[in-house]
């Protein structure tokens, strides 16, 4: 329908135009719907792409024949035999170093098995295939491998294994894990929340319960809304200038007698991330406090409670589920953020568990970034596995936020 018509069609011509108008309407409706279909397809493609990378055939060769270490197949050896092999074939320096990291006697059988593979037999990955290729072109791949790498073994491998979760970093993709990255992420998020939750809730209480409508409070409110839209990398630069550089004596721990570090620590990262999620926490807490009905406050004032007594005994307990939901969402934002951590100086190779706020750190998204930007495809496979770990972590967090919201939500 053209709005510039001088006359609206009438009678027969109106009826004739009607079917055309309906046709246009239904075409556009399906166009609108197709936008959602594209969104769903993108999501499906993304998830498929990740699964495709995390599983598939891998062709590898043993650099050293397992037979030269043991007459029995490796899988049948028990812990003591593995230990003996390691002791006999590793140089005494290398063995001592491993023993210092964790006493060899106390290591599990799986751990010793991995060590034997990693240090003695040494795997050389020749080529990897995606899940789709592995399933659809299985026969061709087998022929190709037999032709190109006659020595190689072909194995369908899930790169995401329980071992992947519990082993630290390694420079070889097949032995690398995300243990240090997960621990680093947890430390960082813990510090961020310890820093941001009390301050954020305090700010929200001030703005909702105490602030009058004067200029300074309006400025605070506008400022918080704007901070929520500042690009995360700018927070990274702020963290680099303030937490890493200006506060170095504090964040490196040299104030507390820690000597072997600079400002690029978990503490700096956690504080930077806390600054980043602070506006989010404030805004969510404000919404939660706003939802507490005024009648509760008036009843409290009516029986003579002071403002803080009202807030502490009546407003906060009722707003708590909302505040917690908001902070879970903030946690999931912090776990996925990468850019500020790069700027603040996440280390790329950490094979020792972080042992406190002053240790160097790596985090799950940092590992994903590192591995994705490597050229070899086996690193893409472990990047995909790490993404699955990250997404499952986020899904759990968000699901618990939704559950919490639905469960404790009160209707007034």
């Amino acid at each position, binding site marked *: *329908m053209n*709005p510039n018509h001088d006359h609206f069609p009438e009678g027969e011509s109106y009826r004739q135009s009607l079917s055309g108008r*309906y046709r246009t*309407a239904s075409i556009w*409706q399906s*166009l*609108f*719907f*197709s936008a*959602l279909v*594209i*969104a769903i397809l*993108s*999501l499906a493609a*993304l998830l498929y*792409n*990740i699964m495709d*990378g995390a599983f598939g055939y891998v062709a590898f060769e043993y650099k050293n024949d397992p037979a030269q270490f043991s007459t029995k197949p490796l899988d049948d050896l028990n812990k003591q035999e593995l230990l003996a092999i390691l002791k006999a074939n590793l140089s005494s320096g290398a063995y001592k170093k491993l023993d210092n990291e964790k006493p060899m006697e106390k290591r599990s059988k799986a751990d010793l098995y991995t060590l034997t593979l990693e240090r003695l037999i040494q795997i050389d990955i020749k080529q990897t295939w995606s899940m789709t290729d592995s399933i659809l072109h299985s026969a061709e791949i087998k022929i190709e491998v037999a032709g190109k790498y006659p020595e190689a073994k072909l194995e369908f491998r899930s790169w995401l294994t329980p071992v992947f979760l519990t082993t630290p970093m390694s420079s070889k993709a097949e032995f690398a894990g995300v243990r240090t990255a997960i621990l680093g992420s947890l430390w960082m998020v813990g510090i961020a929340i310890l820093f941001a939750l*009390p*301050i954020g809730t*305090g*700010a929200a*209480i*001030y703005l909702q319960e*105490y602030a009058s409508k004067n200029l300074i*409070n309006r400025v*605070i409110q506008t*400022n918080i*809304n*704007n*901070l929520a*839209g500042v*690009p*995360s*990398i*700018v927070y*990274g*630069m*702020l963290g680099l*200038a303030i937490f890493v550089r200006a506060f170095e004596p504090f964040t490196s721990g040299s104030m507390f007698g820690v000597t072997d570090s600079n400002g690029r620590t978990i503490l700096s990262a956690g504080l930077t991330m806390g*600054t980043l999620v*602070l*506006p989010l926490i404030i805004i969510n807490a404000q919404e939660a406090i706003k939802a507490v009905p005024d009648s509760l406050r008036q009843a409290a004032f009516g029986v003579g409670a*002071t*403002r*803080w007594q009202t807030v502490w005994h009546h407003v906060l307990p009722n707003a708590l589920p909302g505040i917690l939901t908001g902070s879970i969402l903030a946690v999931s934002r912090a*776990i*996925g*953020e990468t*850019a500020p951590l*790069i*700027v603040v*100086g996440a280390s790329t190779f950490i094979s020792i568990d972080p042992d406190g706020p002053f240790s160097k750190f790596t985090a799950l*998204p940092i590992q*994903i*970034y590192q591995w*994705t930007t490597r050229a070899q495809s086996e690193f*893409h496979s472990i990047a995909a596995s790490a993404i699955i770990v*990250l997404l499952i972590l986020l899904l759990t967090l*968000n699901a618990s936020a939704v559950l919490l919201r639905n469960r404790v939500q009160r209707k007034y």
Partner: protein
Amino acid sequence: MKRENTIKENINFRPLDLKKKMRPGESIIQTLLFISGVLSIFITVAIVYELGKEALLFFNNPDVTLAKFLGTTRWQPGIGLFGIWPLVTSTLITSTIAMFVSLPLGLAAALFLSEYASPKARSVLKPILEILAGIPTVVYGYFALLFMTPLLQKIFGEGVEVYNMGSAGIVMGIMILPLISSMSEDALSAVPRALREGAYAMGATKFETSLQVVLPAALSGIGAALIIGISRAVGETMIVAIAAGAGPNFTFNPFQAAETMTGHIARISGGDLSYNTIDYTSLFAIALMLFLVTLILNLVSQVIINKFRQRYE
């Protein structure tokens, strides 16, 4: 009479004190709460001060002149090349591509959700958009490099480089889509029902109503969504750092590699950067530009939203 007397005798009235009582605990708490509120202002001040201080060091460097900064097209502060344009153009190109993907798709999705979808369909479709919005950007980077780029190479052939602005831009568009659609949907559902009923009464079809009545009425809210989307695209880091290329490149070809402002900051600061070098201060100059651009965009969009709200409330 007698009863009243006993009540008066039994209740021991305290003399009413109308003066405000001093409660030191209360005022301490109130001060602490005020400090937490004001801290957010300190964060903004700290951002402006720290970025400004280092950026000033950069621009005060005798080698850096305005003519070089804006008049040349190569950026390599380490060897005295200070032309900012390659970083700016690639940021503009990736953001433009992202907006060309996310605005039509997001708007169409919002129109469908607010005007056509049944409550049941909404309850299925909206969470899917929310999942898209919750995926970390580093995952989108993986997707851009290992899915979108091979796809573009299949479609457009050899001319597509392994790292290119096109795939980063498209994937960024997918990332921003949920933001545009949810903000536009809010704007569309804020249009009063009476306007729609009026259009139906005049014999308009649902499509004519939504396109010629509801959409114009929600235009300012959609404008705000567009502006927020641009600000998000300009500040987005991980997708471009992974997929758009490493190294400033002055080009307008979306199939070539070129580093954006954010990607440049991420790459340079990723190494062990020593303080007080020209590389270090130049990053702060770029970050200050980013901060100012996004701040202005966010402020404009907030002003638009506030105006829009007043009109219908």
